[in-house]
């Protein structure tokens, strides 16, 4: 039992350093691919489309050698919220549906429409979280930076500083694990001096009251860390050259072209396939 291991509870922001076909892709293609798939899953209205997305995602996890339980870990904390949303959705849609309900109790109605739509909601969230997990496991932070750099390059003609925007995102991602670690430290320091953290007997209100004196020092500690990091970056000459260069010369190969094509086909299927025909 270790209720303080916050790091193990977040799968987001954790790069898995393995050498898989997905890991080897051009970061621009990877990033574009994830964005396309995430958009497709978000826009898809049909169960069949989401089913295809599920197949695509498991194929992706398989190819990138991410253990499924590791990818599912990110689901743990948002799960209650998703379920609450799903229940709301279920009754809302049922209420409005013209279908005959299979169950009624006072003013509550339950219809197949409602069940279907809350099922789709759950599935969509589930797939989005898996996609985000896969993205953060296969894209190292520097790859995200280079990926953004590649994708946003056209914007630089308009005077937009893509390098700075991507560095901001990189630092944000780099801070995720360290945020978890400092949260763990503060919670432990407070718990060992009598706060309700990790005390199974503490009530919800008692735990809620702990939140503010927890968030304030967390904020301060992270500001200090950010300050130290900024110093370290400046000391290593960050910010003088408009054009940063990178270790790897990312080129565009056959694998990249094939992957992009596969992602495009899947995205079209996910959004427009209804099981028997395409809807436009």
């Amino acid at each position, binding site marked *: 039992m*270790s209720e303080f291991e916050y790091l193990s509870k977040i799968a987001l922001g954790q790069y898995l350093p393995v050498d898989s076909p997905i890991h080897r892709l051009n970061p621009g293609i990877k990033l574009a691919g994830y964005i396309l798939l995430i958009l497709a899953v978000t826009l898809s209205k049909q169960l069949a489309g989401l089913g295809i997305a599920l197949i695509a995602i498991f194929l992706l996890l398989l190819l990138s050698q991410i253990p499924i339980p*590791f990818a599912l870990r990110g689901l743990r904390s948002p799960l209650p919220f998703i379920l609450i949303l799903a229940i709301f959705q279920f009754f809302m849609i049922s209420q409005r549906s013209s279908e005959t309900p299979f169950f009624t109790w006072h003013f509550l109605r339950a219809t197949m429409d409602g069940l279907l739509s809350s099922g789709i909601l759950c599935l969509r969230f589930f797939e989005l979280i898996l996609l985000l997990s896969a993205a953060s496991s296969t894209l190292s932070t520097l790859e995200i930076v280079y990926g953004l750099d590649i994708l946003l390059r056209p914007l630089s003609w308009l005077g937009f500083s893509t390098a700075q925007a991507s560095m901001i995102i990189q630092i944000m991602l780099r801070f995720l694990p360290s945020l978890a670690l*400092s949260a763990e430290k503060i919670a*432990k320091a407070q718990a060992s*001096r*009598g706060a309700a953290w990790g005390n199974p007997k503490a009530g919800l209100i008692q735990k809620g009251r702990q939140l503010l004196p927890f968030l304030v020092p967390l904020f301060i500690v992270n500001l200090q860390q950010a300050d130290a990091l900024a110093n370290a970056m*400046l000391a290593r000459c960050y910010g003088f050259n408009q054009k940063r260069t990178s270790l790897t010369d990312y080129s565009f190969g056959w694998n990249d072209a094939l992957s992009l094509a596969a992602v495009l086909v899947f995205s079209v299927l996910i959004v427009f396939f209804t099981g028997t025909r395409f809807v436009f």
Partner: protein
Amino acid sequence: MSALIHLENVHFTYPNDSSLSKAVLTNIKLTIHAGEFVALIGANGSGKSTLAKLLNALLLPERGKVLIAGMDTREYGFHTLIRSQVGLVFQRPQNQIVATTVEEDTAFGPGNLGLEPAKIKARVNDALFRTGLAHYRQRSSFQLSAGETQRLALAGVLAMQPRCVIFDETTAMLDPIGREMVMAQIRDLNRQGITVILITHLMQEAAFAERVIVLHHGEIALDDSPSKVFSNNRDLPALGLDLPPATMAASKLIRYFPDLQPNPQSEETLLESLPGYSGEQSHSRSTKHSATSNQPIVSIEDLSFTYMAGTPLAQPALDHLNLQVDQGKVHALIGATGAGKSTILQHINGLYRPQSGRVLVAGLDTSDSRLDIMALRKKAALAFQQPEDQIFEQYIGDEIAYAPRHLGYQGRLEDIVRSAMQVAGLDFDEYKDRLTSTLSGGEKRKVALASILAIQADILLLDEPLSGLDPQASREFLRTMDDQKKAGRTILVSTHQYDEMLPLVDWVSTIHNGKDCLHGNSEFVFSQIETLEEIGLRAPLPARIAARLIQLGWPIIRDTATFTSLEHQLASLTSRGAV
């Protein structure tokens, strides 16, 4: 030799900081030539880190001039060149890592210089090879151990191909062997022609330099060779400093060996200069040590624990560990970084519950689901590593009152806070309403200690309490610990700096790979030089002196690890006219 670094009458104050309105640095005049090895020492808050940042153009002087290879740091156009020539390795390596993999992090600096990929690759290869990280290229940067993170921070600086590297208390978080490795690396760099400026609290590290600069209240108090600085030992305590252990040992031993060199450069030099024995022969004796008959107050049975269990990052920490802590004793946990010491302390406090095995603390079983955890935390108070990071209240009084407020207390709250502050060396009326954010490093450590003492627990669990403290603050801390021991408290302390703690410690457990592999009274454990070395620890200096003397034929008891017992024996041996 040309002047690489030249400071003319430099003054510096931090702007917008009313609490620290006095100048941090005043009238600094300093010249450092290319290829020098300089140690910069001084008490906490004497301005060492500020000076380092001035040399790297991270801070600019308020008055005066800082010239790096002739370039004025106030000329913005020189900054790229200055920062690539003067590299800075900061106190906490984990705060310097920008990227998620080792290779990419090392490439960050050269990338900022706008070099071509092929050139960056060559520099990264070279830097990783020189720091021994060549096999870790693709490793995720936050999965490295403390020592490896330290080396990565250095690799990132070396990839810039600097002419000078400043190390700002780089070894503070490392175990003795890790510290020695970093020191060896630093000396290697210097031999390759790189100018080194080493900021440290450890006098034995400063003794390796060619030149020692002592800062005191923002001014240069001493600037000389180590032998001159450390022979001037009357001034050092006033500057918040100490003698290096080898010099201190020599000053004690010179009474028995008048021919001894008073100022050995290193511990090795001291050991080699010890004289042979010419008195009557008798075999070196050894004493028997009996297990203590005391009742254990903490008892750990067959405890195993794995971090991130069930993930690809799973890391075993404790492996069927057995350990007992006797009431009223000071019990030290020693072992290399990552051996599992902190994990043990957090089990005793109930922050971790056993995955398998049992932990009994004053009769409470921490794996019991009905355990009254507040009762446990009142019994065993835990001070974390770097406790100053874990201060969370705005005012000092509130910070110290936090534990008694939440855990319940007897008597007036004010009295409890007052006495805890007094024991920790803080004046109640002066400090209670001060903001925690305005304290110096040493003061923060005292506040953290007082906030633990306010629990009035029977057992104190202290995790690396001496790391990052200057010699004077360390001495004050040890005095407080001694008072607590005399008051009947049980103290379980994990430490790398056991040399300093030696006189206090009764019992020692050596943790290696999550197991207790050697335990006994401190004289016994610390005299097992070979066993300690096998698990990456260095025996304390008096133990190594005793072993060397035994080797030279002196009839010294084998279990000798403290100066007290060593001096006691030498006094009786030399008074018989043995020398």
